[in-house]
């Protein structure tokens, strides 16, 4: 019972913190230079890992689809199906896990250290609002950077898929790319983008919340980082299910409206 109460307490705290971030974002002036600095640092921090992971996800998806499609003699659609699955589901999920592992943990540790070394109190005493000064720029930075990383990760996944498609299934680059526009429709891209955005909001909110509310010195910072990693992973998976569920409902309504 106590465990459940703690979970709901954490969730409630996170949602209230998101509300505070939104209020600050709307009501207070956020310096553009701070936001751009954050976007840049998130992209730089996650660029190599996203590229590598994107490449291998594309490669793995291609190998898995090639095994199945070879049996049906439909290898021509390999590029289209592999890319569609990556854009809709695996790509955003992958980027979110990358972000939560690298940027989420880093943000939480950085803010936690600022909290326990009284830097956040100092910001308040020096006439500024820590939310406006350090939280909102990080929040926007993580969310916007995730879209750039998603785009880049997807390009790398297509690249990885093309190479493995050629080596593993003998599908040349032209053939691989030919069916991508046929299978990957705007709805797939919209789904992928919405998922990416919602995962980024989860990572940004949890990491800033856990960092901002850190207590208990170095041990507290360690706890905040671990808690951020666990909480973001769980919430990302839950959000994945939720966005798919809502997406299905929206699609059904759209289809009913059209017919």
């Amino acid at each position, binding site marked *: 019972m106590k465990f459940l109460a703690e979970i709901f307490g954490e969730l409630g705290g996170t949602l209230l913190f998101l509300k505070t971030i939104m209020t600050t974002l709307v009501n207070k002036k956020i310096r553009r230079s701070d936001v751009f600095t954050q976007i840049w640092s998130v992209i730089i921090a996650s660029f190599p890992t996203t590229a590598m992971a994107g490449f291998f996800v594309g490669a793995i998806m291609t190998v898995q689809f090639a095994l199945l499609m070879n049996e049906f003699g439909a290898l021509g659609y390999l590029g289209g199906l592999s890319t569609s699955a990556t854009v809709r589901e695996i790509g955003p999920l992958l980027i979110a896990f990358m972000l939560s592992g690298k940027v989420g943990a880093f943000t939480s540790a950085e803010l936690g250290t600022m909290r326990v070394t009284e*830097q956040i*109190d100092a910001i308040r005493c020096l*006439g500024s609002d820590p939310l406006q000064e350090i939280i909102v720029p990080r929040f926007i930075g993580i969310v916007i950077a995730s879209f750039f990383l998603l785009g880049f990760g997807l390009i790398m996944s297509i690249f990885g898929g093309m190479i493995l498609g050629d080596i593993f299934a003998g599908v040349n680059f032209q053939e691989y790319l030919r069916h991508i526009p046929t299978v990957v429709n705007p709805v797939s891209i919209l789904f992928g983008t919405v998922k990416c955005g919602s995962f980024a909001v989860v990572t940004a909110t949890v990491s800033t919340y856990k960092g901002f509310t850190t207590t208990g010195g170095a041990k507290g910072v360690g706890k905040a980082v671990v808690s951020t990693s666990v909480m973001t992973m769980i919430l990302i998976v839950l959000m994945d299910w939720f966005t798919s569920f809502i997406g299905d409902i929206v699609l059904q309504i759209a289809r009913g409206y059209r017919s």
Partner: protein
Amino acid sequence: MIEFKGLIKKFGNRTVLNGLDLIIREGEIVFILGTSGTGKSVLLKNIVGLMRPDEGEIWIDGEEVSRFSEDQYFSIRKKCGMVFQQPALFDSLTVFENIAFGLRRHFRLSEREVTDRVQLALKLVNIQGVEQKRPTQMSYGMQKRVSLARTIALQPKILLFDEPTTGLDPITTTVINHLIQDLSKQLKSTSIVVSHDMNCALSIADRIVVLDKGQIEAIGTPDELKKSQHPLVRDFLAEVLSL
């Protein structure tokens, strides 16, 4: 003038400040002494609104501030400069940017004026030529001085020091203690210093307050406290008198 009326602050079941009443007059240097966990730092944080009392009132220059909103506290924080227990410098900024941080947010100054005030503050704490260094490139003692410079650059009416000499060597401790005295005189500020250092308190304080279990156990001038027979005061004095 700062006045605390029946101040109570609790953390869960633990009462840290237990109905504290105290008046601090304008321009005086008051040392607050006490064993760890007696609510000394909590008292300072209540003045600048980093913590809020559960009960009681805090009056600063005729205004009851304990129920102020975060925005209303802006004007209070402008007149109360706080030096934290840790240097609390922003690692990502240079020394210059650290000191300029509060100046740019509290006042509308030109860049020339900001530079002048940063340099004056660094001169007052006896360090110069470190403007472009990052806090991580400096010793702990230097960081403490920069932290002091960041606070005094705002030229506050009230200076709050939370254990300013903790973790420093005896020589730097003496330097910082003299700085507190000199700065208080030069800026004509009211200073509240939370400390464990009875020796320093006896040499520079106008009044000393000894806290225990969230209440005032003894209060008076250094000379009055030297004559006190209160066991806690005697304990604090024992170390000094044995020197």
